[in-house]
């Protein structure tokens, strides 16, 4: 018998963990001599009280949905893909190459092609660590981290030596052709006459991200492949017994994971900067870890967690603008969320389980007192 009901497991425990993580974040803000309440007010004001703020919040949310899903899919196969950052970088390269390859006439044609390009490059970058894990037993955590560093060098080399337009000083590609510009929320909502700030980069990719959530849900819980990935993640020995190939699942799960991370580039590269720059990913690959952990690797959870981190990210940017708190605060919050929802999960879970057990025992005792008996287990 489970110690506590399902709702407590999926809602109560993560919620309490997040509250604790935020409490400690507040302490950190206090420790560097700032007022946490003011900080929260600034964050909310800057991210949730205007269409401008919401625009940025949802833009970041889109990034984190992709990387959160990427980490989640790997988690389901019991693999820890810390390489989302590098995969998203390479995904940017794929998107840029697609966008620069043709004078695209319209974004409806460019978007699917770019999506494919980004996903393909992200998947390829994940494929090498996946193969090394599946065939050579290399520790995937270490190899994916190494591949983040390598991705940085590769991109740096390509931007400086290959893609930089002549005469430019920036390590960045040329600006994409106008046909690749994705409609922003101001354009989309404008059709319905709803005003939305034109400044923030939130764009149609947000809906692609939501589709990706649905797609991952369908994959994991409604297809044979998802079933096999989950089975493998829970028990490799049982998977082998059932005839599920560990090599195949390791490869496929990491390819999907890398593809999702790479697909993020339609948002930040195609949707926002319209060219590929060095630091386009901005740590979104790493935030995906916190998002996946907090969202319990379920697409609905990932969506909600991504929204929260979108708010934090935009709020953090506002903070660094108006106060002395640097943007790195978001890294600290992210670390605390990972710590409390991931590593210290039992610290929250065990007392709650005990409370539910005690409540059940009391109920049983009361029922026994009334002369009712439960059938034996």
């Amino acid at each position, binding site marked *: *018998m*489970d*110690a506590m009901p399902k709702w407590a497991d999926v809602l109560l425990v993560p919620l309490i963990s997040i509250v604790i993580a935020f409490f400690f974040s507040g302490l950190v803000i206090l420790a560097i001599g700032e007022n946490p309440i003011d900080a929260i007010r600034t964050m909310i004001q800057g991210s949730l009280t205007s269409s401008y703020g919401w625009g940025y919040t949802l833009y970041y949310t889109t990034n984190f949905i992709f990387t959160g899903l990427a980490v989640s899919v790997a988690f389901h196969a019991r693999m820890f893909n810390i390489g989302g950052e590098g995969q998203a970088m390479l995904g940017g390269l794929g998107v840029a190459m697609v966008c620069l390859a043709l004078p695209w006439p319209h974004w409806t044609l460019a978007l699917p092609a770019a999506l494919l390009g980004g996903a393909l490059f992200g998947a390829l970058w994940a494929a090498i660590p996946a193969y090394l894990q599946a065939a050579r037993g290399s520790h995937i955590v270490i190899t994916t981290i190494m591949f983040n560093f390598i991705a940085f060098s590769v991109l740096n080399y390509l931007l400086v030596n290959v893609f930089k337009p002549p005469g430019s000083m920036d390590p960045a590609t040329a600006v994409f052709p106008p046909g690749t510009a994705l409609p922003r929320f101001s354009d989309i909502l404008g059709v319905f006459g709803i005003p939305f700030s034109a400044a923030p980069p939130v764009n149609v990719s947000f809906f692609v991200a939501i589709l990706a959530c649905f797609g991952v849900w*369908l994959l994991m819980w*409604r*297809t*044979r492949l998802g*079933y*096999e990935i*989950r*089975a493998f993640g*829970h*028990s490799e*020995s*049982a998977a*082998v*017994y*059932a*005839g*599920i*190939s560990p090599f195949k699942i390791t490869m496929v799960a990491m390819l999907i994971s890398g593809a999702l991370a790479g697909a993020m580039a339609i948002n930040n590269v195609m949707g926002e900067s319209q060219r590929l720059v060095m630091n386009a990913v901005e740590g979104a690959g790493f935030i995906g870890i916190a998002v996946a952990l907090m969202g319990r690797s379920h697409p609905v959870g990932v969506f909600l967690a991504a929204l929260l981190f979108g708010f934090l990210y935009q709020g953090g940017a506002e903070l660094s603008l108006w106060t002395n708190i640097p943007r790195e605060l978001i890294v600290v919050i992210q670390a605390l969320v990972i710590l409390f929802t991931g590593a210290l999960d039992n610290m929250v879970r065990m007392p709650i*389980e005990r409370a539910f*057990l005690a409540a*059940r025992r009391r109920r049983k005792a009361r029922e026994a007192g009334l002369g009712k008996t439960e059938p*034996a*287990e």
Partner: protein
Amino acid sequence: MALDADTAGRPSPAAPDQTAPAIELRGISKAFGPVQANKDISIRVMPGTIHGIIGENGAGKSTLMSILYGFYKADAGEIFINGQKTEIPDSQSAIRSGIGMVFQHFKLVENFTVLENIILGVEDGAMLRPSLAKARKTLKDLAAEYELNVDPDAVIEDLSVGHQQRVEILKALYRQAQILILDEPTGVLTPAEADQLFRILARLKEEGKTIILITHKLREIMDATDTVSVMRRGEMTATVKTSETSPEQLAELMVGRKVLLEIEKQPAAPGRMVLEVENLQVIDDQGVERLKGVSLHVRAGEILGISGVAGNGQTELLEVLGGITKGTGSVRINGEEIDLTGKHSDGRTRRHRGIAHVPEDRQREGLIMDFFAWENACFGYHDDPSYNRGMLTDNDAIRGDTEKKIEKFDIRPANCWLTAKNFSGGNQQKIVVAREMERNPEILLVGQPTRGVDIGAIEFIHKQIVALRDAGSAVLLVSVELDEILSLSDRIAVMFDGRIMGERLPVETDERELGLLMAGVDKVPAGVSEVEAVEANLDAAAREG
């Protein structure tokens, strides 16, 4: 704990008071989460006796003794050692009170030597050298005194299981244990080794030591113990003198009703040849030869039982036939050769060829413990067309099918939305058995079908296996329980060290003969006792592996 070499193995200074019980437990209770493992248990064991504790799987025997050894902490209750109330919050305190325990799964560090394992936790001083030297000397004395010979410098993983058990006993004696608890000690031994263990226990008893023997084997209780306690569902149902009880009475006390100790089955009517195995070999990842040329055959409508001590290649035999590991040699199903090494040599292709497989370890292989019952009920068959609709899985169909299996196999609780870990051992096994049997396979591979299963489920599963045989399937049964092999099989093959030592008909053989075969002894050479022959063989095999 300071230990003086001169007193090791001899009665500790506080000599037991002969009138007080060596051990007395009063009102011990223990719950693991929602499961009540021990309910208000009281027991008294007099010094210098062998006391048996018998009960079904999950009755709470091991939990109770682990509490006495300080491995678990009781929720309630008191412990008295030699009449003195004693707190045992951890194993350190248990050791200090003169208690030693040999767990069912040995607690040895496998890549350490015997000596290192012996001194672990009772080293003298911060440096290892003097401790090791002293332990070497003490060990020699103990070995001579109790006939417990082991090479002090051997690494544990190179020792036979029987010798590993000796190390565990030596560990307890080195810590000057006066009370020795053994949890299912014979499960991993050949009958000859088990006999020798009981001689050692008798010897220890003569020395005045108190021994508690946990087992589920009625015969061991009848042969070896002075008194016996019976446990059922976490409760102590009776404590009696062994001389005043009978196996039938104990069985009834264990289960709470009369038990059929025999399986009703008609003589087999073997039909066409279904499974032919020739010269099958398996080499594992470490390069060790696990199967050394096994040949056997099973016809439709017969059960071939494979007997042997665990670890002699039975696992690999099932795994290679089930597609889990690769091997070389020839395996034919209905006369058709199957691929043993290729890319598609896996569980999925084997199922398509009509091989169903109830694995030895249901929690590690047969089930995904965190999956719902319905997700487990299609495991391995999830690519079957009836479970799928186009690209997507047809979860309603799978659940409907599961409901039917739950009803037919009387799986309780009858709820396909429970995860596997929420079922009892017996019901977990029924989920696996239902899944593998429901498709009337050509061949059923069954490993340890009743390990960790209650008697009710054992009877049910045995009946199902016989029914499947009668319906025309070929059954290959692997079990370490001799009783199970003898009562279910139509033919018996005995495995030792990766080979088949011989084949016998159940009516023409007995436990003694099978026991010798299990130790690889075909014929006992002249001038050598059976035990010596067995030991020599087992040592040689362990060194080689």
